[in-house]
């Protein structure tokens, strides 16, 4: 109670206080909302990255497996030997004699109806700009001009040193761009925003121009054209994706064959040559080193300067000169150095008898917490005793594989490696690089920086190293450099500094994982070489979405990919869940779910954070795991009801299988012979734990070969063919009669019915063979 005024003041004060409190409340709530969004964004990122790296690991694993077989396998017949040689040896075409004579492209006619750009050489700036414009209008460059451009590009590249030295005194500014991965929109945007290349405007593109995106060809054409037009100002570095082996898996090979049905083969063959002649690094003013991946503690720029870079056609495990040869060369160096440098292949039992091998593959997150002592890449195994152990366990494993593959063994490992190297020298005229040379290049193209000091094997990618700030410092000091620019890793903001701002990662493919997932960026080096970053996101759609919508879209995409992966491991998950369900109630706690999922998938993801998106909230925190797995399967299956566990195996090996088929089809003809198919399948089945008899394989091969001409058209096969297990139309897979088939010897040609839909996922069908063993 008081006078009128004070009451009014009092209530005014009360009002103000209420307002403040309301605002504070809303603030609190809003902060929580933003925090949850941020958490979701980070988790989504982790999902994409871990799946991406696991995929890369797969690729390397696969290649290692094949190369290993190649090294140690003794074919029992001449045919088998030839087949394997052809399949696994990197095709090195001796281009030089071909270069001298009139190249094939001149004989290619360009029809009058062709409305795309026509190139003539020497190229003029107008041609290059015309290319950009043409591609923007979705035109395609005629194969003749593609090949012509590639030949001219190679002629130019051959003159360049391994480490390109560039000076800023000629042009006012230098712009460095990172990975583009076939995303033409980003390249066009960069030129639009930053300006076209010119004598006053230098560019460096730091590798990974191709794969994944859909316009890799067009990007190469533009980049090569500008390089020919402005040779002093336009520079390209090789990335780990400028590699035909990697292209087989990540989409570039497919893109070329799709766009150039007649001349695709030749284009790919020519590209192999162009890629291996790309420079390895660019050095600006002797101060800023630009390379694609990173460095290691043994990176030696002088050595890199001197090697013949074109010898390294692919950075996947390649043939290196035999150690015995090298030893003889080095005039009696101690045996110790070379005895156990052969890393133990991942698929051999190693954790039991041997210490941490540098090639032990681990999950994305796990590696980061692995504080084991820094192992210098490739050199930690010691002693001949060790190598003897390796050899014996190798022999055992090899024997098993051989038996499963039904191939006979005669002779010893020594003979094997000798005959393998014979095959090498038959296959290619160029001398192979030494182990060290190869290692140097792999390090440059595949390594990633890490926060901890030291240098350890990059087990996630399967090649190169993780290098710490001390390694960077050491290198910069040794060569008197200011800082390093590299790419190779996607970053949410398109760039990232690390190692005390001595290493800059620059990544130019925006929306890399999904629309809205990340920005792209490029860096301009001004006077005194200070970096100035420009970011962008080349997609109009994202600008109209709210942040929450953007995050939701990307998240949904990541979750879809994750669910697919979960489904692909259904059987393993089921057995893992059962372990937590001792009383066989059919229920496990959500905590057990998280533990089980991680132990099967090894992705190092925050499963509890993701749980609400993957598992329907159940009462009292228990999960009926069998129905959960069934629901997963239901999502993945389309109209046709395909045998679930087989589909699962397929999914798990899908990209591998496609890669394998493309490897088999080494001349990119689109056909593989029945014989090749059978032989490859035998080798694969031991690797993939699928029990398949010879008869089944023959049956399958024959049933795929529609027109009975002894060849399987791979494109049709992969894209149009569909097999459905009649006996397994609906219901519980555990009751599927397929399960009983395993008891009978071989499969009794289950009734396959063929429906001829065209579907990109249809390669799946092939393998609807007898059940994998339980």
């Amino acid at each position, binding site marked *: 109670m008081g006078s009128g005024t004070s009451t009014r003041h009092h209530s005014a004060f009360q009002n103000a206080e209420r307002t*403040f409190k309301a605002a504070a409340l809303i*603030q609190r709530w809003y*902060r*929580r909302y*933003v*925090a949850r969004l*941020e958490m979701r964004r*980070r988790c989504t990122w982790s999902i994409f990255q871990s799946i991406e790296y696991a995929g890369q690991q797969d690729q390397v694993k696969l290649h290692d497996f094949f190369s290993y077989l190649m090294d140690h396998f003794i074919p029992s017949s001449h045919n088998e030997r030839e087949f394997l040689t052809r399949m696994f040896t990197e095709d090195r075409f001796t281009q030089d004699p071909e270069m001298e004579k009139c190249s094939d492209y001149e004989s290619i006619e360009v029809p009058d109806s062709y409305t795309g750009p026509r190139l003539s050489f020497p190229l003029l700036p107008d041609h290059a700009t015309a290319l950009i414009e043409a591609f923007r209008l979705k035109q395609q460059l005629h194969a003749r001009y593609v090949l012509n451009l590639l030949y001219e590009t190679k002629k130019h590249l051959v003159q360049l040193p391994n480490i390109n030295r560039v000076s800023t005194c000629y042009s006012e500014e230098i712009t460095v761009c990172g990975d583009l991965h076939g995303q033409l929109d980003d390249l066009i945007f960069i030129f639009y925003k930053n300006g076209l290349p010119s004598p006053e405007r230098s560019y460096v593109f730091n590798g990974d121009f191709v794969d994944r995106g859909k316009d890799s060809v067009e990007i190469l054409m533009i980049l090569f054209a500008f390089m020919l037009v402005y040779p002093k100002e336009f520079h390209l570095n090789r990335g780990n994706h400028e590699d035909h082996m990697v292209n087989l898996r990540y989409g570039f090979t497919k893109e070329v064959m799709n766009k150039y049905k007649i001349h695709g083969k030749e284009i790919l063959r020519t590209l192999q040559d162009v890629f291996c002649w790309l420079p390895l690094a660019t050095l600006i003013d002797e101060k800023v080193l630009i390379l694609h991946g990173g460095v290691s503690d043994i990176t030696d720029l002088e050595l890199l300067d001197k090697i013949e870079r074109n010898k390294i056609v692919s950075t996947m495990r390649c043939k290196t000169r035999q150690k015995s040869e090298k030893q003889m060369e080095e005039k009696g160096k101690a045996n110790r150095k070379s005895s156990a440098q052969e890393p133990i292949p991942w698929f051999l039992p190693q954790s039991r008898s041997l210490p941490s091998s540098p090639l032990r593959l681990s999950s994305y997150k796990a590696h980061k917490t692995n504080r084991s002592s820094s192992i210098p890449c490739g050199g930690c195994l010691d002693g001949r005793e060790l190598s003897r152990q390796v050899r014996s366990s190798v022999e055992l494993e090899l024997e098993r594989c051989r038996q499963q593959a039904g191939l006979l063994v005669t002779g010893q490992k020594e003979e094997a490696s000798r005959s393998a190297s014979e095959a090498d020298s038959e296959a290619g005229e160029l001398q192979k690089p030494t182990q060290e040379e190869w290692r140097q290049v792999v390090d440059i193209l595949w390594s990633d920086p890490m926060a901890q000091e030291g240098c350890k094997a990059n087990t996630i990618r399967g090649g190169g190293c993780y290098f710490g700030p001390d390694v960077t410092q050491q290198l910069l000091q040794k060569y008197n450099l200011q800082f390093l620019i590299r790419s190779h890793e996607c970053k949410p903001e398109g760039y990232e500094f690390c190692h005390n701002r001595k290493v800059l990662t620059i990544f130019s493919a925006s929306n890399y994982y999904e629309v809205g997932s990340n920005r792209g960026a490029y860096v301009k080096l001004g006077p005194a070489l200070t970096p100035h970053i420009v970011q962008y996101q080349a997609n109009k759609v994202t600008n109209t979405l709210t942040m929450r919508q953007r995050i939701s879209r990307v998240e949904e995409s990541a979750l879809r990919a994750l669910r697919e992966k979960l489904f692909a491991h259904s059987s393993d998950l089921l057995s893992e869940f059962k372990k937590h369900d001792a009383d066989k109630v059919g229920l496990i706690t959500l*905590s057990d779910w998280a533990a089980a999922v991680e132990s099967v998938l090894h992705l190092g993801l925050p499963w509890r*954070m993701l749980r609400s998106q993957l598992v329907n909230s159940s009462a009292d925190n228990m999960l009926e795991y069998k129905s959960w797995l069934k629901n997963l399967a239901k999502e993945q299956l389309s109209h046709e009801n395909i045998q679930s566990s087989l589909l699962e195996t397929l999914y798990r090996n899908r990209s591998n299988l496609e890669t394998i088929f493309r490897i088999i089809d080494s001349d990119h003809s689109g056909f593989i012979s029945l014989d090749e198919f059978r032989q490859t399948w035998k080798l694969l089945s031991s690797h993939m734990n699928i029990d398949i008899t010879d008869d089944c394989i023959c049956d399958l091969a024959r049933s795929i070969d529609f027109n009975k001409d002894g060849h399987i058209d791979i494109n049709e096969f992969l894209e149009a063919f569909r097999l459905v297990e009649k006996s397994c139309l609906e219901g519980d897979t555990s009751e599927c009669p397929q399960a009983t088939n395993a008891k009978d010897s071989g499969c009794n040609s289950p009734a396959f019915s063929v429906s001829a839909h065209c579907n990109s996922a249809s390669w799946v069908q092939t393998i609807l063979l007898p059940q994998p063993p339980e």
Partner: protein
Amino acid sequence: MADEKDREEIIVAEFHKKIKEAFEVFDHESNNTVDVREIGTIIRSLGCCPTEGELHDLIAEVEEEEPTGYIRFEKFLPVMTEILLERRYRPIPEDVLLRAFEVLDSAKRGFLTKDELIKYMTEEDRVSLCRLGW
């Protein structure tokens, strides 16, 4: 009695795993530390809704004696477990939130303009008034 203790242990173990997961998402150098500026995000993503003032107090609790700008997991874990066990900083129920908006919308229009919202959200006095125990 023994049963309850077991149950509590299980709950605590589960909390520990949750907290560790959330923490690791922000542990960029994989050395069991996070930037102090991310602590708020971590705590909030675990379901809590502290005011800024409460957050500052929490940070003071988990910081080193000589603040390094980083929070270590070892210090964070027990404090966060306690918070979860005690169900502190519960999120705001929707109806209360709605009423808060209604308070700010004195003219009863059913909306707030962007400028108004910004004005309300960014005045600093809020912080001190939070301490009035809202």
